[in-house]
C-alpha cells in the first residue's frame, strides 16, 4: 500500500528520483497495477477531449495540454486522464504476465505522463456523481447530486468541429463556465463533472480560458470494456473537505516529500513545482 502511494506521489510531484527509490526497494511483490476492482458498468463508446490549461497564474503564457477520456456506459460514465488509463492498463497486463520488473525497467511512464489522477463517475450512485482522487497518503472520494450544476441556455449557436452547437452557461467551483453542446450526439454528458445538457458537451471553458476542454474524437468499439472502480480504502468526504485536504497538501509539500523518502533536492523541486501549480480547476 505504501509503495503504491509513492507511485502515485510520483504522478503528482513528477519526482523521478522517488521512482528510483521504489525500484531500489525491490518491493515488487505488492500489487502495482493488478489491483482488485469492481465492475460498475461497461462501455463501447469512448470520447476523447483535449484539456488545455494554465497551471500557473504568474505565468499565463505557459499552456499545457493533455488528452482526457470519457467512457460512456449504459448507466454510468467515467472521466479520467487518457495516459493514466492506458498506463494502468498496460501495467496491469505486464503484471498479470509476470513481467512487472521488465515493464518497470522500460520506464514506460515517460510516455504516459499525466497531471490528473482523478476519476469521475457520473450517475454513480444514481442521480449523483462521485469524484475519486488521492491526496497523499490518502485516497478520497466525495459525492454530489447531479443537479449541483444548473445550466442556463443561451441563444447563441455555432458549429464546433463538424457539429452544430448551442451555447449554455453555468457557474461551478468558483468559475463561470461556457459550454457548447450538440444535439447531433444526444449523450447528456461531457468532460469533467459537466453533464446534463441535452446533447454532448463538445467544448467547455471557464470565462478566463484557464481551463478549456475540447472534444476531438468519438470512438465506438465492437467489443465492450469494463468501467472499473478500484477497491481501495476510499475515505468518504465532502467536496469542501477534499479541497481543503488538497490545499493542505500543497502547503505541506516539503514534509510530505520528505516522508516519501525524497532527498533534499527533490523536496525543493517538488516545492517549486507545486508553487507553479497555483491555479486549480476548482476552489
Amino acid at each position: 500500500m505504501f509503495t503504491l502511494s509513492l507511485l502515485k506521489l510520483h504522478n503528482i510531484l513528477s519526482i523521478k528520483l522517488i521512482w528510483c527509490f521504489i525500484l531500489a526497494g525491490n518491493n515488487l511483490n505488492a500489487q502495482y497495477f493488478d489491483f482488485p476492482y469492481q465492475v460498475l458498468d461497461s462501455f463501447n463508446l469512448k470520447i476523447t477531449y483535449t484539456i488545455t490549461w494554465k497551471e500557473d497564474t504568474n505565468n499565463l503564457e505557459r499552456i499545457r495540454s493533455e488528452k482526457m477520456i470519457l467512457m460512456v456506459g449504459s448507466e454510468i460514465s467515467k472521466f479520467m486522464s487518457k495516459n493514466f488509463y492506458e498506463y494502468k492498463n498496460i501495467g496491469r497486463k505486464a503484471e498479470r504476465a509476470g513481467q512487472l520488473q521488465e515493464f518497470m525497467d522500460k520506464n514506460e511512464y515517460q510516455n504516459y505522463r499525466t497531471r490528473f489522477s482523478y476519476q469521475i463517475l457520473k450517475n454513480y450512485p444514481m442521480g449523483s456523481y462521485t469524484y475519486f482522487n488521492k491526496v497523499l497518503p490518502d485516497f478520497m472520494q466525495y459525492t454530489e447530486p447531479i443537479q449541483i450544476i444548473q445550466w442556463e441556455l443561451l441563444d447563441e449557436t455555432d458549429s464546433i468541429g463538424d457539429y452544430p452547437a448551442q451555447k449554455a452557461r453555468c457557474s461551478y467551483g468558483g468559475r463561470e463556465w461556457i459550454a457548447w453542446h450538440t444535439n447531433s450526439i444526444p449523450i447528456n454528458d461531457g468532460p469533467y463533472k459537466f453533464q446534463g445538457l441535452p446533447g454532448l458537451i463538445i467544448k467547455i471553458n471557464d470565462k478566463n480560458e484557464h481551463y478549456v476542454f475540447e472534444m476531438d474524437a468519438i470512438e465506438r468499439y465492437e467489443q465492450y470494456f469494463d468501467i472499473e472502480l478500484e477497491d481501495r480504502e476510499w475515505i468518504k468526504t465532502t467536496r469542501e473537505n477534499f479541497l481543503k485536504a488538497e490545499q493542505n497538501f500543497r502547503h505541506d509539500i516539503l514534509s510530505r516529500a520528505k516522508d516519501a523518502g525524497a532527498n533534499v533536492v527533490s523536496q525543493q523541486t517538488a516545492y517549486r513545482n507545486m508553487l507553479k501549480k497555483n491555479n486549480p480547476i476548482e476552489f
Partner: protein
Amino acid sequence: MRKWIVIGFTLALVAFRLQSSSQTLISGKVTDTLNKPLRDINVMVYPKHSGILKAYAITDQNGRYVVEVNLETDSLDLLLSSIHFERIKLTIPNQTQKLDFSLKPDTKLLETITVKANPIDQNGDTISYLIEQFKGREDQTIEDVLKKLPGIEVEESGKILYQGLPINKFYVEGLDLTDGRYAMISSNLPHESVSTVEVFEKHQPIRILEDRVYSQQAALNIKLKNKTAYTGSGKIGSGFEPWLWDVKFTPMLLSNKMQLLASYQSNNTGDDVSRQINRFARANKAVFPFQPSETLSLFDLSDLEQYAGLDTKRYLDNQIHLSNINVLIPLKKDLQLRATVFYVNDLRRNQSFEDRTYYLPEDTIRLFQDYKRKQTSRYWHGTFDLNRNTSHNYLKNKTSFTLQKEIFHDRILNETDTIKQYATTPYSSFSNTLNSIFKSGKNLIEFQSLIQYDQGPQELSVAPGPFEAIINSNKFYDTAFQSATLRRFYADHFVGSNLKWKRWIFSIRFGFALRLQTLQSKLEINSNGEQTEAGDSFQNQLDAHQYQIYTIPALQYKFKRLRVSVDWPLNMQQFKLQDASFNTSKSVSKLLQAPKLSINYNFGGFWDVNASWYYLQRLSDPDNFYFAYMLKNYRELIKTEAFFQQTNQQIASASLSYRNAITAFFNTLSYVFVQRQMSLTYSTQLQENGSFIVTALELPNTSQSHNIQFRSSKYIHALKSSLSLNTSFMLNKGKTLVNNESFDAVTMQYNLSPEIFYQTTTWLNFNYKIHHNVMSSYISGDLRSQIRMNRHYFSINLFPTDRHLLNFNLEYFRFDNTDYNFVDMMYRYSFPKSRFKLEARWNNLLNSNDFLTQYNYQFTVLTTTQNLRPSQILISLRFSF
C-alpha cells in the same frame, strides 16, 4: 377591510393569470414499446421553425419529464432524442399539457456519430494513423495515403521512411509477408481495406532480442478493417501512340494467420513495376565479416541515370512483364512458412545525348556523344523460409535463388566514331541461411550458418576495337571481345551469446568466414575477320582465398531512457591471391577492427537524441583485383595489380528528433561526418577521346564528407492539410589523380524542398512542392561549375460531383537558363455501387520531347539530354476487390 381583501385577491389572481399565460408546463412519461420507462431521453423545446433551443428536460429513471416553457409563441417544436432510440419531432400548441411517448429502438444515429476519432494517436512506442482521416477521394492505394501522413515519407521508388530513416519491417496484421519487398503490397492494396497504419518505433523484429538489442528504425503495421480480407486491385488500360498497354492484376488474401498475394503486371507506359519487388527493408548487417557484393557486375554498364527529380514515367521506354507470388502460411503453432517467387521480363530502350566536361587543373576536356541503348533483362528469383519468432525462441531458415540474364545493345556516336557495344551478363546465385536464437537460463545462445554460391560467365564486345595503343600496338582493329567468368563461394558461421545483468547487457559472437573465388578473363581481338588472343597481359586467371576469423563483443548499459553501448569487433583476415597465367601470388594477413560507441537518450516523451562514433577498417574486396587488363566498357580499361587497399573509415553522427502525436508535429535534425583514409589512389589516364585507363598506385589518400539534414512535417487537423520541409547540405572533399596530376576536388550540394498538401474545400485540394538544389564543384579551390536546379510540382484535384475527379499535374523545371514544362491531365469516373473506375489520362500535353540534366562528379560535369516519352493518351478501367 373586506374590500382590501377582495382587491388583493383579485390582484393576486391577475398576477397568477399573467404568469400562467407566459409559462407553460409540458410533462409526461417516456417509455419503450414494452412500456418500460426510459431515462436520459432529451425532451427539447424550440419556438416553431427555430433552431434555438429554449427549454429542455431529461427524463428521470421513471421516464418522467417536466419542461417549463417561457415563450410567447403560439406553437412549439418538441424534439425527443437519445442515442439508442428513435428521434421524434412534433409541433404542439404552446399550452400546459401532458404528453407521453413510446419510442422504438434505433441505433443508426450511433453508427453515424462514431466516425470521428483522433487522426494520430500515440500509445507508448506505437503511433497510429487513422486512415479515414487522411485519405482523399483521389487516393487509390495505401501508398497514396502513406504519402500524406506526417512523419512518414514515401520515395518515388516506393521506399518508406519514418522520421528520415527507412523502416525495417512492413507488416500487415503483424505478419511480414514480403520479407521487405513491401511495395508489392503498398502500391496495390486499396486503402479502403485499411483502418489504421501503426508505426512501431525502435522496433526489434526478432522478439527474443527485444530489450536486448537496440534498433533505431521503426516498423510499419497495416491494420485491416476486416480481420480477414480478400482484397487487391487491378487495371486494364490501353492507349496510343504507339499502341500502349497497361495491365495490373493483384489479388490478395490477408489475415493475421495466413496471407497470400499474387500479381501479374505488364505495361509499356513507362511504369517501372519492378520497383515493387525491390527489397527495401532488410536487417542491418554486422560489420564483420565482410560479405561479397549482392550481385556481380564484371563490366561497368551503368544503368539508366536517375534524371534529377524527373519522374521515370516521363522517359522510361519499356515493355515489362512481372509475375509474383507471395505466400505465408502457419505450419504449426508459431512456425511459419513463407515463399516469394517472381519473374520479370523487361525490355528498355533509351536514347540520350551526353555532354561531358572534365575539369582538370590545367586543362578542360569536353566530349559529346549520342548514346542509344536497348536492354533486355530476365530475372527469376525465389525465396523460401521457415520462421519461428517468439519471445523465447527464434528460428529462421532461408533458401533463395536468383537466375538473371541481361543483354545490352549499345550504339555510341561521338565526333569521330560509331561504336557498337554488346554485352551479355548472365548471373546465377544460390544461398541458404540458418539462424537460431534460444534461451539458456537468463542468457541467449545464438547460432548462424550462411552458405552461398554465385557465378557469372559474362561477355562484352566493342567495335571498332578500343584502346588500340595498348591492345593492338597502335593498330586499328575491328572488334574487342572481352570474356570473363567469376565464380564465388562464401560461407560464414558464428556462435554467440547474450547475457543480461541488471542494467547491463553483454553480447559476444565468434565466427569464421571463408570465401573462395576464381576469375577467368581473356581479351580477344578480331581484325579483318581473324580472331586472335590479345596476349597474356590481358588474361586473368586469378584465384582468391579469403579467411576471416572474427569476434564481436558488445556491451550495453541501459538506465531509464538512456542507452550507452560500446562494440569492439575484431577481424583477423588472411587474403591470398594467385594468378596462374602470371604465376604469381600475393598474400596478406591483417587484424582489422571496428570500434563503435553510441548513445541514445529519450526525454520528455517527445525527444530523442542519438550520437555515435565509429571507426572501421577494411581491406579491398577480392572482386576488385585484376593482374591483367580488363575491358570494363567501350571507354574504360582497368588494371589494379595486386595491391591491397586498406580503408580506414571514421564516421561520427548525431541526430535529434522530436515527434508529438498530439500536435501531429514531427522533426529530425541529423549530422553525419565521414572520413575515409585509403592506402591506394586510383589513377585515371584520360585519353583525348574520353576513354580512360584506371590503375592503382600505392599512395595514401583521404576524403571527407559532411552531411546535415533537417526534416519537419506537421498535420493541421482543422484544415485536413499537411506541411513538410526537407533540407540538406552536403560537402565532399577529396584528392583526385588524373593524368598524373593530383588535385583537390570539392563538391558542395544543398537542397531545400518545402511541400504543402491543402484540402481547400471538399471539391478541391492541391499539392505543391518545390525542390531547390544547388551543386557546386571546386578544383584546387576554384569554382569550376555550379548547377542550379529548381523544380516546381503542382497537382490539383477537382471533384465537380462525388463520382468525377479531374486532376491536373503541372511541373516546371529550371536549370540555369533552361526551362521545362510538363502538363498532365487525368479524369476519373467512379461507377455507382461498384468498385470500378474509368480513367482517362493524357500525359505530357505539351509534348515536351527532351530533358536536360546536369550532374557533378569529382572532376566531371555530365550534361545529359534525355529523350522523353511523347504526348500519350491512355484509357483504363481500374478495379479493387
